[in-house]
């Protein structure tokens, strides 16, 4: 026991010494750099999509430093690996914020990872930039959604098909999780509001990583040969897409017969598929690598130089990170500090050029304005833009087409509320 006491006393002595030096070291470091957290899975099932985003962030940080950093300080990227493990996302977020003291975090891909870290960002009052298209139905003070909300992707895509391809019959096929569920519910309500009958809508859900698509593709084929022009709206996620498209091609479903418009298939995913049989199938995004603007050209050039890979593709969530990062930089400059409260106040209204030739703005609901692009798959795995909205579409946190959220709006500028009910005139009620 006396040993224990001894060590205890030693520890306290040590601690007081460390206290002083630690505080000094902390202060000194704070002067040197501003830390930026990168929270993307580098292993596990999501590594396939998220690793690229980590690289983009590293590039953006490096570039900003070349421009002289931010507020006279260098930026420093802190990379962690949440390993596609959702609770680990929360743990790593907590570590980034309270241990590494990052000024903002760029990260997450899946909805569940975002949901997992949400309480952490709220509790520790930090900032998360979320770069992926998602199901909406959320607006948090500490989160900025730079990917598409359903109204910036799904609805314009359906409009395009109905108008341009005269589609009258719809297959809504998705992986069974919250994004497809919500998107399909919104689309179902939207289509019905446009006079599409229930029997002309087929909804189908499959599990993650579904690989045997024979039956479902055959069903789609059958559904599509009933005389009316049919299209498939696919919210099929990640890995399941390759066997799905392969089965489509093999069963001879061509884009001219039954076009498939996908919301989760981008350049990265197509890089793993032989795109020749898929020519003409569509995707709706806010950005395509093939977009012909000087901004995009410059970006791709830098990206390829950074990754030292002449063939490296770019995609929509990457652009979202570019927009988010630039907005954050501007907001920090505007606020003159990285203090989250000040930045959150300053960032609303900030405008930065996106890569498709427009200027995106951060809205009071923490979503951004973006153009909606519909592209057809080309033989080389790139997209040919076949339609683009005339102006930028503001992201809506709450869908007009869903019963529960119809009356909700988000406004962090004046109402200071993410779910303000316009009927009861109350926040969160």
């Amino acid at each position, binding site marked *: 026991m006396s040993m224990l006491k001894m060590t205890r006393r030693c520890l306290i002595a040590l601690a007081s010494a460390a206290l002083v030096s630690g505080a000094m070291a902390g202060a000194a470091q704070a002067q040197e750099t501003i830390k930026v957290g990168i929270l993307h899975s580098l292993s596990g099932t999501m590594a396939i999509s998220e690793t690229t985003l980590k690289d983009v962030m590293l590039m953006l940080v490096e570039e900003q430093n070349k421009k002289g950093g931010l507020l006279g300080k260098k930026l420093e990227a802190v990379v962690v690996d949440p390993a596609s493990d959702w609770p680990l996302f929360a743990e790593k977020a907590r570590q980034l914020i309270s241990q590494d003291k990052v000024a903002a975090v760029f990260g997450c891909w899946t909805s569940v990872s975002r949901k997992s870290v949400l309480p952490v960002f709220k509790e520790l009052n930090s900032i998360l930039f979320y770069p992926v298209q998602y199901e909406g139905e959320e607006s948090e003070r500490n989160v900025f959604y730079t990917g598409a909300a359903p109204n910036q992707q799904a609805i314009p895509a359906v409009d395009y098909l109905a108008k341009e391809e005269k589609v009258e019959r719809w297959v809504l096929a998705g992986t069974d999780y919250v994004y497809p569920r919500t998107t399909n519910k919104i689309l179902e309500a939207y289509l019905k509001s446009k006079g599409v009958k229930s029997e002309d809508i087929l909804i189908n859900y*499959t599990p993650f*990583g579904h690989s*045997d698509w024979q039956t479902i593709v055959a069903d789609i084929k059958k559904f599509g040969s009933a*005389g009316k022009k049919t299209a498939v709206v696919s919210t099929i996620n990640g890995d399941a897409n*390759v066997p799905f498209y*392969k089965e489509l091609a093999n069963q001879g479903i061509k884009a001219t017969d039954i076009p498939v418009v996908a919301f989760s298939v981008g350049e990265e995913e197509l890089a793993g598929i032989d795109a020749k049989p898929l020519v003409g199938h569509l995707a709706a995004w806010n950005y395509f690598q093939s977009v012909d603007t000087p901004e995009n050209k410059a970006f791709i050039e830098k990206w390829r130089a950074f990754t030292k890979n002449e063939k490296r593709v770019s995609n929509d969530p990457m652009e979202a990170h570019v927009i988010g990062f630039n907005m954050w930089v501007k907001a920090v400059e505007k606020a003159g500090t990285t203090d989250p409260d000040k930045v959150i106040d300053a960032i609303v209204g900030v405008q930065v050029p996106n890569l498709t030739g427009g200027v995106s703005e951060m809205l009071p609901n923490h979503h951004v304005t973006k153009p909606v692009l519909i592209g*057809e798959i080309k033989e080389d795995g790139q997209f040919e833009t076949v339609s683009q909205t005339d102006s930028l579409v503001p992201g809506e946190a709450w869908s007009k087409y869903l019963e529960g959220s119809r009356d909700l709006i988000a406004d962090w500028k004046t109402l200071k509320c993410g779910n303000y009910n316009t009927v009861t005139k109350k926040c969160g009620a």
Partner: protein
Amino acid sequence: MPSLRIVLQVFVLLIGMTASTKAGPYEEALPKFAADSYADTETALSAIANSGHARALTVVEALRDGRLLLGAGQVYLKEVSGTLIDVATGQAANPTGNLKPIRVNNRVRRATEAALGSLTLLSADPATRLNAARAVFRSRDVAALSALERAIAQESDVHVRDALEGARAAIILSKPDALISDKKAAIEILEARGDQQALALLTTLPSDAPPELVKAAGDAAEGIQTRLAFWNALQNVWYGISLGSVLLLAAIGLAITFGTMGVINMAHGEMVMIGAYTTFVVQETIRGYAPGLFDASLFIALPLAFLAAGTVGIMIERGVIRFLYGRPLETLLATWGLSLILQQGVRTIFGPTNREVGTPAWMSGALEVSGLSLTYNRIAIVIFAFSVFAVLLLVMRYTSLGLYVRAVTQNRRMAASMGIRTNRIDALAFGLGSGVAGIAGVALSQIDNVSPNLGQGYIIDSFMVVVFGGVGNLWGTLVGAMTLGAANKMLEPYAGAVLGKIVILIAIILFIQRRPRGLFALKGRAVEA
């Protein structure tokens, strides 16, 4: 709808033609391409297709292939040989400035197909004529009717003729001013055709159709429906067999390592993955050095995948598993560790994203047998799976390796004392099992992702197959794979993919407790040892 519009457009164009005698519809249409709008492109296309102009076919084909270029309001055509000609004059041209291909979308592509259909109905090649007939069937373009009739008159190929008549029937049925008797004849032809599209045509008659026609169509549709129901059931059986074959391929290597050697190889899925990546590397090499060999790429990949996975298997056996014989649970953990390392290794070398493995031409498309649609790649996989099974059965039964493996399995000490080098047999048998998993990977690369996670998707299913079928018996694996495949596909239409799979898993759990050693279990004292 589109057909009606085309009729109107043709009509308008015809009026235009009479107005100005100088420029025909062909010349009139060309400037529309310059608008760079899909609707205008489509209009121009239809006009050109119906103009009867000598260059119409060339232009349509060029548009389809992205060889129709636009420069300063002029339309140029780049021939396959690379020379540019001015589409309006047909003369070789040498324009200055930037040329951009005219953009095509699905709508234009569809119109192109329809146009090509009516333009190639009289082609010399029967396959082209067949495609043309199908295209016309889909477009139901009234303008193609006369060409169609000419084609039917001189068609000699029965198969193509049927298709042509089907197309004509489709047009007549949807043509408002056709005679009732003709329409009735069309209904009969469509009924004989008996497929889903025919059914769709028959069930979507316009509301103002005469009652007798509606009745005839209704009867015909009913007949088709009964037939389709039958074909549907058969089709489901086929899906079951083809899923069963995939499971068989994935599991059969395991049946050797687990079934006869008693080694729980959790890295089995990664052997499949190695096979798939071998295919990728082979294809990349071929693309780079000998593109002509692409169609043979899978055959080249097979032995290489066998060797690659087999070698890794032998290394695993020598390096890890041989220390763990008789401790199945420890083997399970160690090989799980190996599987993590192999996955991450592949991720480090090839990157985390999917890699593209192409499908050779002979494996694309589907074979239509009456109401059945059998895709070539699935046919190939079914045949392949059964061949692998047969070869393996022969190897185990008739070769000395098979004999030795069985001897070692039954009594290691006795086998050793008879001069069999059990160490070598263990390594070879494990290599064989892994190699077979490797060639399964070649086949699976055709239907699934080639990614580091590939193996993970199959490992549980493979174990289920082997355990369900009964350990130590290749026939059990075959029956197990087919049963699970068929059960899965039978349940899927009713329960959905997820629930179906859950039901099957529960059924297996219950089954195992009825017959703890599987369907084809060995009985007797030996298995207790």
